[in-house]
């Protein structure tokens, strides 16, 4: 917690009066809050102001920039964030914010300007077609503006235009409620699976147009690939017995690897999903061993997975064709707890996974080849499981029971800040989408 907020408020108030917005009441000042989870000086300050009729768009972008964890945010109430005339960025200098985003309605949509406050200059601008009453899928267009701003200021990858797939659970119920999809700001939850059985383990294909999941009926788990645009389903040809689950698409989308839980053992298989054929086995460790939860490296050449071949579950790696199998995440100090469900970061550098630690099951990351011990990234609650990377390789979504039930949480590895993604019911087995383009369903 920082006292910086209190120190800044008078300056912010002065600055806003200079901008010439509506009169500011003491109550408004109370409602102003600045981000508190930051390393002082490490993140640029930013605020978002908008002309008439853009309050809701402004709020969405403001939240998106906050969730990027890349800025020191000034969250403004509508009365303060609303511009009566074009923004005079020089007037914001007393605030100490580095950047100001200005939104104005124009005939073709919304004009977005990025002001560098200290220089008093517009650094980037563009007109974006936005549906101002956007709901549901159309909100992605607003999220893309947020990601554009992140790119303009930081050169980094914004994650506002992404979604998370998860398995939904009805609270306290044993009934399966399917695979759901939710925007990462917690809006727009939609049940997407078209299935009659018990479903598990959702995964995105590389371009975000299709999903894979497991559907268990009559004790057999089929691997289903479903189009998000049409809902059309195809079943991957696999062995007819066992539960085929925890699928991962290869980065080029042509293959899928998955674990098959069966009497002869739990092993990894690969199938060709371009031709829908040719499932074959990649691991063999006997019927009491498990090889599960594969994750491709971004170049598609390697696969990380969990294996119990040496007794306790640990993170292994192999070439994508199944050769060169070896421990990938080293045992640390001989006291390494069981480790589960690895996910390979999109930048290729890091493996995230769940591991038994003194405080229960926690999320860890291991920087590949660094020789350094894995880093513990969570410490709240005793069950933190199944991490999945955001496209920016700095955020992870995972399942945690820290509130007493399974919910989705996001942690920013740079700041350590975490937040819950509020879902309609219980939620687990999250999978973070790639960046979703305007062509995505």
């Amino acid at each position, binding site marked *: 917690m920082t006292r910086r907020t209190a120190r800044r408020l008078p300056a912010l108030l002065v600055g806003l009066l200079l901008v010439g917005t509506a009169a500011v009441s003491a109550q408004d000042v109370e409602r102003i809050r600045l981000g508190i989870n930051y390393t002082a000086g490490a993140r640029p300050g930013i605020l978002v102001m908008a002309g008439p009729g853009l309050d809701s768009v402004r709020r969405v972008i403001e939240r998106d920039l906050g969730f990027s964890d890349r800025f020191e945010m000034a969250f403004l109430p509508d009365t303060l964030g609303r511009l009566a005339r074009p923004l005079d960025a020089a007037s914001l200098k007393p605030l100490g914010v580095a950047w100001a985003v200005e939104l104005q309605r124009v005939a073709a949509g919304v004009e977005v300007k990025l002001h560098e406050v200290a220089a008093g200059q517009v650094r980037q601008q563009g007109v974006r077609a936005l549906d101002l009453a956007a709901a549901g899928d159309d909100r992605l267009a607003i999220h893309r503006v947020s990601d554009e701003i992140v790119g303009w200021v930081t050169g980094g990858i914004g994650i506002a235009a992404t979604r998370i797939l998860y*398995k939904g659970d009805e609270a*306290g*119920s*044993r009934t*399966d409620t399917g695979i759901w999809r939710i925007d990462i700001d917690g809006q727009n939850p939609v049940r997407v699976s078209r299935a009659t059985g*018990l479903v*598990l*383990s959702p995964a995105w294909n590389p371009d975000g147009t299709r999903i894979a999941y497991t559907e*268990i009926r009559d*004790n057999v*788990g089929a691997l289903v690939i479903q189009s998000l645009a049409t809902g059309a389903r195809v079943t991957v040809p696999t062995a007819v017995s066992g*539960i085929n*689950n*925890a699928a991962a698409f290869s980065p080029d989308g042509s293959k899928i690897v998955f*674990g098959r*839980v*069966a*009497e002869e053992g*739990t092993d990894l298989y690969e199938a060709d999903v371009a031709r829908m054929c040719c499932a074959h086995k990649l691991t063999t460790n006997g*019927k*009491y061993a*498990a090889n*599960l*939860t594969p994750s491709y490296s971004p170049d598609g050449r390697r696969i990380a997975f*969990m294996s*119990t071949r040496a007794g306790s*579950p640990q993170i292994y790696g192999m070439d994508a064709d199944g050769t060169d199998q070896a421990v990938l995440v080293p045992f640390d100090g001989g006291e390494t707890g*069981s480790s*589960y*469900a690895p996910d390979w970061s999109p930048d290729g550098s890091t493996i995230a996974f*769940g591991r038994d630690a003194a405080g229960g*099951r926690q999320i860890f990351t291991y920087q590949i080849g660094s020789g350094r011990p894995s880093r513990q990234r969570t410490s709240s609650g005793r*069950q933190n*499981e*199944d991490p999945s990377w955001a496209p920016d390789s700095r955020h992870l979504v995972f399942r945690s*029971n820290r509130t*007493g*039930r*399974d919910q989705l949480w996001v942690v920013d590895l740079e700041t350590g800040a975490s937040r819950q993604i509020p879902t309609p019911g219980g939620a*687990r*087995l999250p999978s973070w989408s790639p960046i979703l383009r305007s062509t995505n369903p």
Partner: protein
Amino acid sequence: MNQRALVVALLGLATTVGACGKKADPNMSPAPVPSSTPVATTPPPPRSTSADSIARADAARREAERAALVNQLAETIHFEYDQFVIGADDTGRLDRKAAILKANAALRIRVTGHADERGSDEYNLALGMRRAIAAKDYLVRLGVDGSRIEVASLGREVPIDPSPTEAAYAKNRRDEFEAIAGAQTLVAPR
């Protein structure tokens, strides 16, 4: 000679199955029962009240015998956290199942392993499978033909008790047993 080898007719008796105490497993499907009230096609003549009462007593005894067999077959076994070793407490239960299987050559069963909610959900599917295989292996070691035993896993997905408590977790870490063929008649083991 065959006095103890009771051939227990299933028809008309299955209605007792659901009322056999807390060990009765809700997931243990009773064998198929006709929906109409099953009556003997040749009802006993009404003239002998003594014979009636003997017949009723026999029927009641057969009901009890069959219910006991069904219950023994369905008895759930339990596991320690993240383990698939058969506990000493459960060997007796598996021994009785093996005896019933050996006395009824047409009987086939499915063992379904379950896990508590802790741990990776996908790992728990594999763990449940290993629990089912452990029970199957035990029965095979006692001489049951392995082809008569199917194994399956539902991981953590179908808990007995969804509460996040140690007591609930202990109940949920289990193997369930279900007859999938040959249960129309059951012979008690000698």
